[in-house]
């Protein structure tokens, strides 16, 4: 059952990291600030097997495109290694690189940008052949280009050979781009959002073409997309990325039917569906993706996570811990100020706590009071907080009211800790897949109460 036993992976990615923009600006140098690179990809490991279509999904800025570009050597990794067919591509001789270029190709997102406007279709498709000195004679080259164009559905090819890109429609352009990638008969193609710029009615044609070509040319694809329904349609295996980390990977159907990582779960809940009648569950995640320049400590997702793990000695509910933790984050960001509540309230500190314990989530995950007040206030009795935590929160609220935000932050920092913020989770095998979440660490599921969903899918022993 395990693929690794049958076959050698075609591509092995290990601990891959890419930092951008390490150069410092003048102002930063003068102020003596440390450089803050963008951590585009940070510690990704992935195996891609011959003949698979592997999908990489995630929101914009999660590093999926950077990962793809490293695989075709458009970027060099800062750290980590990529082995293609057993050979490390980050350290290749010129000769080996030439060989590599013939075997690995890429299809880009925007067919209006990926074709040189001054080159005809023939020139564009024939270019990889010329560069790699693959076919000497002009006639043979032309025949090969004709053959590939017909393979990608641009037939009769004679019509297209001398056309310029601006004479073609979006779908035709993307087919030309595919032909260009195929002409050298590669083994592995990285497809970066290949249909996102195309109209819906044309997309399916391009996707099906890619599937057909896969068997015809014996290809392996890495399929990068933000559209999860496309990933489901195309891919055998999928990896979900968040802020440069691979949070979950495994067989596509398993991941979609039963997501284990809280982020994956939120991501799939958020996808609208054409199916009628069913009321869809909305994504249970707070806030938005933070800057990859300064990502959160520990698990990158923990500030937004619905299943954040309370400390072992936590006596309240998990939901209460999540709310208390959000309170801490809000105080730290300075989102909570005395003006957040109406000055008319008798007990201002308590009102501030009630305001701070609200969650920025869809209505179905809110308490009644939250729904009634439009997410402005939560009823303290509805939150199962331990008494000493409640005291700490009130103390912090008083500090905020007194204008001493630093004291508020330090008070909360001491009282509300979670393993999610302390250690970065390592990808753990769990059933058919790998999940990078502390809930699937050995024994990590302890102390999880009240979180409900997802617990039944606790780590499977293998």
């Amino acid at each position, binding site marked *: 059952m395990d693929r690794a036993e049958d076959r050698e992976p075609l591509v092995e990615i290990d601990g891959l990291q890419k930092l951008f923009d390490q150069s410092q600006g003048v102002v930063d140098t003068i102020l003596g600030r440390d450089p803050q690179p963008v951590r585009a990809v940070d510690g990704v490991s992935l195996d891609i097997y011959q003949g698979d279509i592997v999908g990489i999904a995630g*929101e914009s800025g999660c590093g999926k495109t950077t990962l793809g570009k490293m695989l075709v050597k458009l970027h060099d990794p800062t750290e980590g290694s990529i082995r293609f067919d057993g050979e490390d591509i980050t350290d290749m001789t010129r000769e080996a690189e030439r060989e590599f270029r013939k075997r690995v190709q890429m299809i880009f997102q925007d067919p209006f940008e990926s074709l040189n406007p001054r080159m005809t279709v023939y020139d564009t498709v024939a270019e990889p052949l010329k560069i790699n000195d693959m076919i000497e004679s002009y006639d043979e080259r032309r025949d090969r280009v004709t053959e590939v164009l017909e393979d990608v559905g641009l037939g009769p090819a004679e019509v297209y050979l001398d056309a310029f890109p601006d004479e073609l429609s979006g779908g035709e352009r993307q087919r030309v781009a595919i032909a260009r990638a195929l002409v050298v008969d590669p083994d592995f193609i990285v497809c970066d959002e290949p249909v996102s710029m195309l109209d819906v009615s044309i*997309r399916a044609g391009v996707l099906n073409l890619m599937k057909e070509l896969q068997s015809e040319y014996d290809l392996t694809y890495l399929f990068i997309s933000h559209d999860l329904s496309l990933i489901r349609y195309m891919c055998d295996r999928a990896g979900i990325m968040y802020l440069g980390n691979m949070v979950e990977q495994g067989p596509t159907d398993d991941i979609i039917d039963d997501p284990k990582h809280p982020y994956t779960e939120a*991501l799939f809940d958020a996808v*609208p569906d054409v199916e*009628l009648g069913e009321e869809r569950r909305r*994504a249970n995640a707070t806030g938005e993706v933070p800057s990859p320049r300064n990502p959160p400590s520990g698990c990158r997702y923990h500030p937004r996570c619905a299943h954040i793990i309370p400390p072992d000695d936590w006596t309240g509910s998990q939901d209460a811990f999540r709310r208390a933790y959000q309170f801490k984050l809000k105080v730290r960001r300075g989102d909570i100020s005395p003006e957040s509540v109406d000055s008319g309230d008798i007990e201002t500190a308590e009102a501030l706590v009630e305001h701070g314990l609200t969650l920025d989530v*869809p209505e179905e995950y809110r308490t009644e009071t939250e729904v009634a007040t439009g997410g*402005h206030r939560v009823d303290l009795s509805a939150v199962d907080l331990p008494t000493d935590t409640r005291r700490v929160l009130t103390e912090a609220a008083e500090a905020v009211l007194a204008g001493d935000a630093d004291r508020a932050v330090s008070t909360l920092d001491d009282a509300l800790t979670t393993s999610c913020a302390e250690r970065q989770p390592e990808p753990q095998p769990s059933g058919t897949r790998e999940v990078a979440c502390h809930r699937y660490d050995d024994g990590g599921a302890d102390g999880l109460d009240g979180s409900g969903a997802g617990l039944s899918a606790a780590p499977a022993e293998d």
Partner: protein
Amino acid sequence: MTLLEVNDLSIRYAVDDGSSVHATDDVSFSVERGETYGLVGESGCGKTTLAKSLVHLLDDNGYVENGNVWFDGTLPQWSDEQGDATQSVIDDPDKPVRADGKTDLAALTNAQIRDIRWRDIAIIPQSAMNALNPVYKVGDQIVEAILRHEPETTADEAHERARDLLERVGIEPDRADDYAHQFSGGMKQRAVIAMAMACSPDLLIADEPTTALDVIIQDRILEELEKLQEEFGVSILVISHDISVMAEICDRMAVMYGGKVMESGPKDEIFGETANPYTLGLKNSFPTITSADQDLVSIPGTPPTLRDPDDGCRFRDRCPFAIEECHASHPPMYDVEAAESLGRSEEGTDERAHRSACYRIDELEQLRTDAIEESTWTEQRIESR
């Protein structure tokens, strides 16, 4: 009650060589009060042009060839205390107001439409992320909108309302003093929605409101729009190419292709009892996240150029079901229900009912069965070669 009634609206873009692009052709639909109406279609089908033309925001070379846009509301100077058109205005043949008090927006001058825009009809533009001015505070921009359209408001009231609006769309009121660049993508979108709601309009036009957003934020914005509608009873006209977003938020919708409405009616009927080959084709080509095994089939060919199109059905070149009749003229909108019981009859006049522009409306069962087959779509393509 009907809020907006678009009748036979044709919009053209003049081209240098004297021809014209038929961006929309005889488009009719109506939006009820409090409902969400969707215009769905691929790029270049005329949906954005249509929405822009409602409030006179077309590019310089675009013009309304014919048709009316009846809107339930009128200019402030033409209305009485209740906001309805006065009798003298209705009786005045020079003023485009009809007996039931509706005003023809297409007949208003550009100066007059400014009083309607934002006050009665607000727009969430396609690139909402860039709709905020970077050099003014977000709150001040909302205040300015309020003061511009409701000059009787005091500055303090306007500020209070701006903060209130931001809070309603889920932004801390304190953030009113921030600049747009301090907002995240989702917050900008929320702020733009708050700004559109500033003068409590009757109709909100949202042009691809979530296209630039990531899926989790899109999810929240869609929820926000639903909540706004519940709270204010505002009608929303959504324009999008994303069928799944439409399926989720719309009550009724129109599927557009090549400047024509191909099918319109309640959402459930359009998805459940699809009655047009184009919509059938679209459904075939759209992957869903819930089903594991699906075979997508694309519609062969490419959308038509709309420069001086001929009389035939706009979709016939790509349609596997095209017959002789389709080449002669574009089909009228038949009432689907009537066609099922009575066969193909006269053009359906009830704009709210499920209607479809297809000559083979009386063979729907057959079309639906055939459309599921992949070969229906691929064989036709070989023929056309």
